[in-house]
């Protein structure tokens, strides 16, 4: 304080005044105030003077603010008018700028909605942050490249709740998908779950009817979703009514819950009380070594998941022994991560790949950047035309700040118009996109102030980003230089412009290449010989008791039709019936053990599906011992044993002891091409042979639901479907007829991959479109700038072709450079995707060249319109103007 000269006014007040006062006011009013202040300070003391000064400033602020705002709007109106004029004058370039930005923004909105939805999974639960799923890391088993399992044993939940102080509550869920529910005449297959009685208190699924405390307390209690309740009972009150499950068990409706929202990993149409399970599944007991339930825990507020993990292991060790606890180590998976936890075995939910979501976000941002680049490029390239305007403006007294503001207003206008257009685009494509990704995305920014702010912020940001370079660049020129020369100063900008073009094309090439690689892999999947024949085969899952008992009759009846080329009862080549421990002895006499997949088939399986028999003989009714005493192995199983001569060897699995190997079949893909072909064993399906003796001895679990597979003669599909339906219906007792074609099931295995490919293709197309727009615009300016040179060359006898070459060469060079940058990026990116397939086509160099050539072709196409025009112009006309 002391250091300040006695005449100095309060700094803060002065600063305020300077902020709101325009320059003239500053000079006079502030000066007046200072002068008077000094006088008061001298006469009445600093303190009084300071108070006086503050009073003066505060009184002046409102009026000054109003004035400055008024002038700002006047200026803004003026800037907007001149920006609008420029947009109207240059219709094509305005279209490129606005259209390109709109496409980029629409991409961003789309992805923003998608990402927001994907990351919103399970966050609607009140205690989402404290809920975890208990999962296992199995040190003894690996399935499909992962040793993580989503399922745990039945007694774990209760033990954790009692013995871990951090665990506030624990609850269990059992998957009850594809269950047949019947109420009166209404019969439906539904997906549901069985859950502990505290389910509706543990999670935030709303129970709209029934008692929250008691709804799932007793055996045979059933809670229906609102939709299912309507389906089964119409408008009647469902409470207290009876629903029959799978034709065996009667359940009592004790509640109705709201339909599960789409962004929940748990999706169900009904919830069955956990207490019902002992009555309907054999392994519903309390064993510590049987893992098939989902266990969720809710930790106490403030408890750390890391602290709980060792305690869970200790609980398992205390009950099931040290060995079990070391073999299958429990750990916690946060509820909100389940949607992205795609490397767990036996998860009941459809998961998504977090990397994929991130990749799509990245691509959307890139497309937006491409569009911004277009804007910057066009704006700076148009410098030649605008320079006169800028020059005149500066000469008549525009300050640099004015010019910068003018260009920013212009780019904000463009981004604002683009935003409007992009919302239209979004509304147009959103329904199709939703159908495609299977998500209920909706765009209602007005209902969500947060989203609206993000949107508005993005538009302003894009406007400022896109406008900043041209604004700074254009305003930096001295008026004298601008007005004198006719296009020289574009040079400095050229380097930046070229770099931007290279970047644009690099991004486009990466996307084209990725699309190509995905497409090639998918074609490989479609055309690869799978080791079996999937065409013209109709499959019916048999769950109905009546149909099951009469499969032989059905087969005989179907075979009577000339349209039926064959019938097989049992597994299809796409259904193995679970893995089990295979034992046998290697050539050196040592015992060999490994996991082997088992398929129960009938005598006609090999012929109907065209599976190759490499050695030995097929199953035959002439050998009665084949039933339960003989097996076929695939090549992978023979390799696993290391046998030179497999025929006649003896193998055992849990259900079949000391069976003879009578033949070896070629490896066929019983899973998708993502997975390696594992060892497999084929045995006769006892159901299908009609033999009764051993049928009861083998314990059929739910994996062992047999199929009726019907090979259809060419062109007779509808007739055969009708025939199978009629035959099925004549035997069925409960389950309605359902069928699928084998090739459809095969296609479904790659549905996600196809979606991935299509999304890539979409984005690649968009980015190429945007990049070409930019290229097109730039070519127009090059042609304009070089118009004089072209005219003179033509006068001197250059051909149209050589002129076109002159103008395009420049662009091709940048496309080549873009290729060099893009290739390694695309290679690294796609290598990780292709790695998901165990069977894959190598990424070939030819594809890279092709993508590069495609990009070059697109660039040439965009440029050629302009060069052609330039090459055709009559030189005299142009030169006359000079």
């Amino acid at each position, binding site marked *: 304080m002391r250091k300040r000269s006695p*005449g100095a*006014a309060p700094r803060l007040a002065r600063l305020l005044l300077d902020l709101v006062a325009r320059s003239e*006011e*500053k*000079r*006079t*009013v*502030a*000066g*007046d*105030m*200072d*002068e*008077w202040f*000094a006088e008061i300070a001298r006469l009445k003391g600093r303190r009084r003077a300071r108070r006086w000064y503050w*009073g*003066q*400033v505060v*009184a*002046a*602020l409102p*009026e*000054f603010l109003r*004035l400055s705002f008024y002038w700002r709007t006047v200026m803004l109106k003026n800037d907007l008018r001149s920006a609008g004029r420029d947009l109207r004058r240059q219709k094509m370039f305005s279209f490129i700028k606005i259209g390109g930005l709109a496409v980029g923004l629409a991409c961003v909105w789309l992805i923003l909605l998608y990402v927001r939805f994907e990351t919103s999974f399970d966050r609607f639960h009140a205690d989402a942050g404290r809920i975890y799923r208990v999962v296992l890391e199995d040190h003894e088993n690996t399935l499909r490249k992962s040793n993580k399992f989503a399922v745990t044993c039945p007694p774990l939940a209760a033990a954790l709740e009692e013995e871990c102080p951090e665990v506030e509550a624990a609850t269990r869920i059992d998957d009850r998908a594809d269950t047949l529910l019947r109420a009166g005449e209404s019969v439906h297959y539904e997906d549901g779950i069985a859950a502990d009685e505290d389910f509706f208190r543990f999670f935030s699924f709303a129970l709209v009817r029934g008692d929250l405390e008691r709804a799932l307390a007793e055996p045979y209690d059933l809670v229906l979703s609102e939709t299912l309740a309507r389906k089964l009972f119409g408008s009647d009150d469902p409470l207290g009514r009876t629903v029959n499950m799978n034709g065996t068990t009667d359940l009592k409706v004790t509640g109705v819950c709201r339909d599960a929202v789409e962004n929940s990993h748990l999706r169900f149409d009904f919830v069955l009380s956990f207490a019902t399970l002992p009555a309907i599944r054999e392994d519903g007991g309390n064993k510590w070594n049987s893992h098939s339930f989902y266990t969720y825990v809710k930790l106490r507020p403030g408890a750390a998941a890391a602290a709980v993990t060792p305690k869970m292991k200790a609980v398992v060790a205390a009950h099931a022994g040290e060995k079990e606890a070391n073999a299958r180590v429990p750990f916690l998976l946060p509820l909100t991560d389940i949607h992205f936890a795609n490397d767990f075995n036996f998860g009941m939910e459809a998961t998504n790949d977090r990397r994929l979501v991130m990749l799509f976000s990245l691509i959307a941002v890139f497309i937006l950047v491409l569009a911004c680049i277009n804007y910057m490029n066009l704006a700076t390239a148009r410098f030649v035309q605008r320079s006169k305007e800028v020059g005149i403006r500066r000469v008549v007294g525009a300050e640099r700040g004015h010019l910068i503001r003018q260009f920013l207003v212009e780019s904000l206008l463009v981004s604002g118009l683009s935003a409007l257009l992009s919302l239209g685009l979004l509304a147009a494509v959103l329904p199709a996109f939703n159908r495609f990704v299977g998500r209920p995305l909706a765009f209602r920014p007005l209902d969500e102030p947060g989203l609206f702010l993000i949107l508005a912020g993005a538009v302003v940001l894009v406007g400022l980003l896109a406008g900043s370079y041209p604004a700074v660049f254009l305003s930096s020129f001295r008026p004298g230089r601008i007005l004198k020369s006719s296009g020289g100063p574009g040079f400095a900008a050229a380097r930046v412009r070229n770099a931007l073009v290279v970047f644009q094309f690099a991004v486009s090439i990466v996307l084209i290449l990725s699309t190509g690689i995905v497409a090639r892999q998918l074609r490989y999947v479609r055309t690869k010989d799978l080791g079996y024949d999937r065409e013209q085969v109709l499959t019916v899952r048999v769950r109905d008791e009546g149909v099951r008992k009469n499969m032989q009759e059905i087969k005989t009846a179907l075979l009577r039709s000339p349209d039926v080329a064959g019938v097989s009862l049992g597994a299809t080549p796409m259904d193995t019936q679970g893995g089990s421990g295979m034992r046998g002895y290697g050539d050196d006499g040592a015992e060999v053990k490994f996991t082997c997949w088992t398929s129960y088939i009938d005598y006609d399986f090999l012929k109907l599906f065209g599976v190759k028999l490499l050695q030995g003989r097929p199953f035959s009714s002439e050998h009665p011992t084949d039933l339960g005493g003989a097996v076929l192995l695939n090549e992978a199983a023979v390799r696993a044993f290391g046998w030179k001569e497999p025929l006649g060897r003896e193998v055992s699995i849990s259900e079949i002891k000391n069976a003879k190997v009578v033949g070896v079949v070629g490896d066929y893909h019983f899973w998708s091409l993502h997975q390696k072909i594992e060892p497999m064993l084929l045995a006769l399906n006892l159901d299908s042979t009609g033999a009764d003796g051993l049928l009861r001895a083998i314990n059929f679990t739910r994996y062992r639901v047999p199929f009726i597979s019907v090979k259809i003669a060419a062109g007779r599909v509808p007739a055969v479907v009708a025939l199978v339906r009629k035959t099925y219906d004549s035997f069925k007792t409960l389950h309605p007829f359902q069928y699928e074609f084998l090739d459809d099931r095969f296609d479904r295995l790659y549905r996600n991959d196809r979606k991935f490919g299509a999304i890539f293709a979409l984005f690649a197309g968009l980015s190429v479109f945007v990049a070409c727009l930019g290229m097109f615009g730039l070519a127009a300016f090059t042609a304009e700038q070089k118009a004089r040179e072209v005219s003179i060359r033509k006068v001197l006898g250059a051909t149209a072709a050589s002129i076109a070459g002159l103008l395009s060469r420049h662009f091709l060079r940048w496309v080549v450079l873009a290729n060099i940058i893009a290739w390694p990026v695309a290679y690294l990116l796609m290598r990780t995707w292709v790695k998901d397939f165990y069977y894959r086509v190598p990424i070939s160099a030819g594809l890279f060249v092709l993508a590069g050539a495609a990009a070059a072709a697109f660039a040439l196409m965009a440029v050629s319109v302009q060069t052609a025009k330039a090459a055709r112009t009559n030189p005299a006309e142009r030169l006359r103007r000079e």
Partner: protein
Amino acid sequence: MEVLSRTDEILLLAILRLGDDAYGVSIAKEIGRRTGKPMKLGALWVLLDIAHQKGLVSKRTGDPTPQRGGRSKIFYRLTPEGYEALENAREFSRALWQGLPQSLKDLS
């Protein structure tokens, strides 16, 4: 024609009295002295600006002085329109008061 507002009248009279020395501080002080009500500089500036836009006063920029933080004074003078407006205001007042007794107490 438009009659000057009271505020403008006060402002123009102050400028008239100050002659060649009419700038922000002096005008504000003069008004304060005459009316007993001090005028804030910010409000004064707005009034001056409007009067200038109406063509009642003209501006002249003086030299910047150190006492004023290096900012120059702006001096104001009445334009012929300003003189005329003041004349009219006086006529107007006179017409309004004409024929009324010196002290209004006699009437009440």
